[in-house]
């Protein structure tokens, strides 16, 4: 297993290099000049040109890339054009909010969707199964921001139970932290509940048709044990895969959720950086997200060994 992990970790290097080159080039061919944005509405063409020089944007592309690559090798993602702060510092400031939201979302989604999927498979064709499938279609179809606004209107404005917006750091207390995460996490988890429940249902349904399930039942095992210990355990690999994909997809999902609930996280930072053409921040964030993707995929691969002892690396 260790050589496998080492190989996978080494494989991240070319992935990151390719991502770095692509992102760098894509940003340079995208219309929009960071200098013009920084200068403000009333700035003159001379002022914009001056800022371009200060930022080094007047240098040839290979020189700009070389400077950035050198910084990156030293573990420095550069300085934000927009905020004049190191990109690593910006990411550090925002990471807690995004990770909190992602973590709570995934926990909520898994805790709800896996049992629902198992029950739907167990009661295949019944009203619960049909209800869950209907909910899945709803979960996939309704945009995140609509769910968000509806929940805010009902839970915050009409019932007054939870705050409308904002984020409290966990060191401000567990309750304020949870209070500010409940609605965003529910909002964001709807689509993941739909996705994971559907995959769980399909996987468990397939497992329930296997001979070993018939054997387990013939041995007189209680149905709950048959479902959890035999069917669910054997269906775990595709479920783990889809949860892993879900974590990766969350990065995109948090952008909208963080906007609707005014959470100062990485999603919001990405949007701001793109709108401001803040090249170092966008590049740094995408590299950071790439690392997370690679890390999550590696963890998912490793989890297969736990769920299915037949798998060896």
């Amino acid at each position, binding site marked *: 297993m260790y050589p496998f992990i080492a190989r996978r970790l080494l494989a991240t290097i070319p992935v990151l290099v390719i991502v770095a080159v692509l992102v760098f080039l894509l940003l340079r061919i995208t*219309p929009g000049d960071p200098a013009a944005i920084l200068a403000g509405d*009333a700035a003159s*063409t001379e002022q914009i040109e001056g800022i371009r020089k*200060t930022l080094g944007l007047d240098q040839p592309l290979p020189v700009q890339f070389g400077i950035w690559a050198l910084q990156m090798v030293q573990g420095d993602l550069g300085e934000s054009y927009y*905020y004049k702060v190191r990109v690593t510092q910006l990411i550090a*400031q925002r990471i807690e909010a995004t990770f909190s939201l992602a973590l709570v979302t995934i926990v909520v989604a898994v805790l709800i969707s896996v049992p629902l999927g198992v029950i739907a498979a167990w009661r295949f064709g019944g009203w619960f199964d049909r209800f869950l499938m209907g909910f899945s279609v709803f979960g996939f179809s309704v945009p995140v921001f609509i769910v968000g606004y509806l929940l805010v209107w009902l839970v915050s404005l009409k019932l007054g139970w939870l705050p*409308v917006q904002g984020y409290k750091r966990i060191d401000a207390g567990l309750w304020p932290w949870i209070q500010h995460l409940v609605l965003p996490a529910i909002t964001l988890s709807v689509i993941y509940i739909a996705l994971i429940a559907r995959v769980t249902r399909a996987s468990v349904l397939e497992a329930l048709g296997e001979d070993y399930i018939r054997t387990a039942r013939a041995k007189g095992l209680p149905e709950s044990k048959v479902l959890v210990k035999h069917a669910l355990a054997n269906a775990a690999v595709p479920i783990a895969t889809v949860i892993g994909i879900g974590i990766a997809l969350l990065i995109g999902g948090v952008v909208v959720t963080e906007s609707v609930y005014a959470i100062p996280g990485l999603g919001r930072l990405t949007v*701001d950086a793109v709108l401001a053409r803040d090249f170092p921040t966008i590049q740094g964030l995408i590299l950071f997200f790439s690392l997370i993707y690679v890390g999550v995929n590696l963890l998912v691969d490793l989890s297969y060994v736990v769920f299915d002892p037949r798998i060896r690396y």
Partner: protein
Amino acid sequence: MNLKRTLVAVGIAAASSAPIALAQAQTVLTVVPHSNLAILDPIWTTAYMSRNHGYMIYDTLFGTDENSKIQPQMVDTWTVSADKRVYDFKLRAGLEWHDGAPVTGEDVAASLARWGKRDAMGGALMTFVDKIEAVGKDGFRITLKEPAGFVIEALGKPSSNVPFIMPKRIAETPPDKQIAEYIGSGPYVFQKDEFKPGDKAVYTKFTKYVPRKETASGTAGGKRVHVDKVVWNLALRDYQAQVNALIKGEVDIIENVPFQHYETLVKDPNVEVRKTKIGLQYMCRFNHLHPPFNNVKVRQAVLASFNQRPFLQAQVGVADLYKPCPSMFTCGTPYGVATGSDIQSKGSMKQAQDLLKASGYDGTPVVIMKPTDLSSIDKLPEVAAQLMRQAGLKVDLQAMDWQTLVSRRAKKDAPKDGGWNMFCTAWVSPDIDNPVNNAALPARGASTPWFGWPEDAKLEELRRAFMMETDEKKKIAMAGAVQARAFEVATHAPVGEFTQPLAGRKTIKGWMTHGLAHTYWNISK
């Protein structure tokens, strides 16, 4: 054992909640600004958020009151020599920087020098200035090469770039570099450690600030602070979420009420919606370098077709919030006259069609840049395109995000090579209310500072004459002459005025909504 643990836990919880209780005793005003605060140097950028940040922590030599009159602020007294070339100023007693040092004439001289290198009006003033020097500890002198009629107006200009006064060591930062220290002498102290870009900016009351005795008015008068802390919520930028947070009482003020939410907030019993006293102007700018707008007759045809009402109805929609105005300097201001505006204010589609025929227009398409992500101006290009089509022009309406637009408008290339013919924008009145600061009026061809690059020697002469005139009555007439010439050569098209509503909880008192900038003194909760 369990009981003991519980008691310890309760003790720790009680101890840790003590500072929270103290913090809650402070009066905190939570504001949702109109945009994100990123750049903390209000001289380096013209961004309005940076300007508003400047008003929190810096003071100004002069301010502009709600009637657009310049009033002394840091300055106590001043004299002008008989030949109108030497201005001597004395600063008020008790002015102090946030780090405890006194404000001196040297600080002022350094600050004005840096501002003069960045700001358009400051730059115009510097063409008249021979030298700026400190006189004693609390005075400074401006010596001019020749008389200028806008010295005090420039020093008291309320909008970007505002001549904020900074300590000498900070003001000596090269003008093309951003400052790195944020020490002012204004009513609030910037809490740099608590600043999180895109999340929040925190300002605390500067307890040693000595306000003027006069009543606060605009950016002038006594800047009295009645709250302990002002927090700018920079994360809350979704309009619907802003409105929800205000209704729920999670924030005290939102600076920018979208027109579509205006009625909702007006009806809310706990919210007060206010209109700013001084408004904004929409304008569409021609690119004078390329066909068809390098032809004055075509530009005049467009002016004749640009009835302001359709622009305002489409963009604002709420009749209470807009009004057509024939002046390029905005109505209700000292120079807000209608002189020479007939081509637009009394224009018609028939006249536009006739002018276009007479222009020899060859069917060159007009590239209009339309920002799709800026709801405050995104309908203007649609209306402009429709009116121009009716007049007989071919129009190529190109959608893009605002940041692409601001980058592209700086290009002087032909439209087919990535340039442009027209874009529309909005200006706050104080940025365009006279012939010196109105960015659309300089007409020096390709060297014109603002995009569009008109060229007209006569207009430049008239602007220069206005700058040199010191008699106020004559200046009004001269501003009319500048405007008449600008309409004649069609530098740009003003397409109506509006006020941007703001909203706050009814528990807020003394809130100033003058519209010159967003300022947070005189306010209590």
